[in-house]
């Protein structure tokens, strides 16, 4: 028996588990989802990321069956789901508000789906107990939802959605209602549970950090369309557009003109000075094209002495410092006029002056030509 690949989307010809084909959803004149296609593979933890109103929730609701596509089709595990009502889909959803039934105990909430399927008493009991112990709420079965904390409610919602062993679990902003500490802890719990159950997860979130940590792959949505689909590292290191470069993490954007190109080696001149940068990129930019160079803050080195190992070097003055403990963020006004954001780990525990970079210090910035991202115009 051949072991399923951990990265099925990398393989040509792999069979998708969820297949979304040319789906459009209109509400009156408003197009919420605009002709999108997407394949999601079995066992994935797929992230749908975007700001509010980008169409991610509408897409999730179409997977759940609460909305019907205006055009296009959706299939899950080979079966066409386009017109199947929610109560007949092999899909369960964890709602953003959790939507726990307030008039039922935790046990009854979890048992609800099993009872609708006609599962018998003893088995219901056993499976509910299994779920409760999985989410570590063994002693809370008799409580009502309002007697639980936010984090406990979230786990009940998860248990209720998983007890029917759905083929796909849809999660609508699963961590949004939790405070930061709990959110981080729960992220790993979710990943753990996904790993153990093997259920395919589709997670909608507006929080890019959450999407990056949780997901095997991310689809970034804006205005009803996918801007980019890829593994988190792929999207972060190779953002396709300005929008994504800014939406995922932060980026310094420098407007440049291509002045020379030898295969993938490019020379780029800053638009409003004669500073020249070197970059390596497979973007199809020709000499004379105006484009944008994106630089992640952590990819720029900062030092009080020159950085001879970097093939891009600029000088500047530190205007702002945000000390965050393990790292510091500097805003540096460069000699060529742009302000660059730079983050650097605080590797040395410097208490005295002289070593540490301080306000108004003259600094050298440097980066590798592999670190610069040339965005498609």
């Amino acid at each position, binding site marked *: 028996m051949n072991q399923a690949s951990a990265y099925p989307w990398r393989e040509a010809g792999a069979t998708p588990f969820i297949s979304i084909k040319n789906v459009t959803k209109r509400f009156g004149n408003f197009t919420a989802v605009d002709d999108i296609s997407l394949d999601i593979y079995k066992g994935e933890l797929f992230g749908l990321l975007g700001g509010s109103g980008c169409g991610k929730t509408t897409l999730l609701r179409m997977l759940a069956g609460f909305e019907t596509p205006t055009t296009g089709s959706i299939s899950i595990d080979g079966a066409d789901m386009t017109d199947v009502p929610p109560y007949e889909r092999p899909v369960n959803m964890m709602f*953003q508000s959790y*939507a726990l*039934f307030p008039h039922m105990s935790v046990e009854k909430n979890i048992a*609800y*789906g099993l009872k609708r399927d006609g599962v018998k008493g003893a088995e219901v009991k056993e499976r509910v107990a299994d779920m409760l112990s999985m989410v570590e709420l063994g002693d809370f079965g008799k409580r009502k939802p309002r007697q639980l904390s936010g984090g406990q409610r979230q786990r009940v919602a998860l248990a209720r959605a998983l007890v029917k062993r759905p083929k796909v679990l849809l999660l609508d902003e699963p961590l949004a209602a939790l405070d930061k500490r709990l959110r981080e802890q729960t992220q790993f719990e979710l990943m753990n549970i996904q790993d153990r159950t093997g259920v395919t997860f589709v997670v909608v979130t507006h929080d890019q950090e959450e999407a990056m940590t949780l997901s095997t792959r991310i689809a970034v949505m804006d205005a009803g369309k996918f801007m980019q689909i890829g593994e988190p590292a792929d999207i972060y290191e190779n953002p396709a557009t300005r929008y994504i470069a800014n939406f995922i993490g932060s980026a310094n954007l420098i407007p440049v003109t291509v002045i020379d190109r030898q295969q993938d080696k490019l020379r780029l001149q800053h638009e409003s000075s004669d500073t020249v940068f070197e970059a390596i990129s497979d973007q199809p930019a020709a000499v004379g094209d105006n484009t944008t160079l994106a630089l992640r803050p952590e990819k720029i080195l900062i030092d009080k002495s020159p950085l001879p190992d970097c093939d891009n070097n600029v000088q500047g003055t530190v205007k702002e410092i945000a000390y965050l403990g393990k790292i510091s963020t500097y805003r540096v006004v460069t000699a060529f006029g742009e302000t660059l954001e730079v983050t650097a780990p605080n590797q040395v525990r410097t208490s005295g002056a002289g070593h540490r970079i301080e306000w108004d210090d003259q600094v050298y910035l440097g980066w590798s030509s592999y670190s610069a991202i040339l965005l498609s115009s």
Partner: protein
Amino acid sequence: MSISKTHAGFGNWLQSRWQTVVSGIPFFWLLLFFLAPFFIVLKISLAESIIASPPFTRLLDWSGGGLPTLKVSIDNFAYMWEDSLYVRTYLSSLKIAFVSTVLCLLIGYPMAYAIVKAEGTTRYILLLLIILPFWTSFLLRVYAWMGLLADQGTLNSFLIWIGVIEKPIRLLYSQFAVYVGIVYTYLPFMILPLYANMEKLDISLQEAAADLGAKPVAGFFTVTLPLTLPGIIAGSLLVFIPATGEFVIPDLLGGGNVLMIGRVLYSEFNANHDWPVASAVAIALVIVLVVPMMLYHKVQAAEALRES
């Protein structure tokens, strides 16, 4: 100087006691317009009927000189129990009120649900249509129903005209007419509390039910209905209680054919001039209506206590 000081003093007093003051107003209201009349009526119900003005004996008899003698009689209540007319009338009133409440619920529930589901302006227009009848006199509207239901009325004329019937059918002065009148009049009292309750209902709960495999009917009975129960109870009480004691509708639309306690009360007071018996009838009605409500409250409070 002293005036401003007093003002400040009053202001402080008001500030520290405003909660008591504000919550005291409804208590005062209840005392003045409910409890006081109730005790007056209770007092009369324990008296005996005489031909005088007022037509009942005094509770305290001073005629002997010196200490007054207390004259309390429960004869009126005993009489009510012995004469089967009263018991039958109570049962008939309760039955009519109950059936009307059920009818209001069956008609009002889908209406309230549809209003909640309606979008934007439509919702407010529909709500306005529910409230609109209150802008005309209740009496006028009941008279309008007389015109509609009479033998020569609009409905019979129409049915004859389209050829469904040949001669008028008896609609007015029947139990049917009373049901029409009560359901028509009290329907808004069912719809409005239901609307208020359903508006707060989180739609994602119904979606969650569907998502977990509940077909629409199952979802309704396991989630929507239990969660709208407070609205159902509030609406039902608002219909049931006034419908039980209803006088105008059975009098105008039911004629002599429908037994309801409100009409008996009216004739005891006005035709028979037997105030003590009429008062006893009224007191019994209050007991019939209030005791089950108090029991219900007690059960609810106990349940809330058990849960917390």
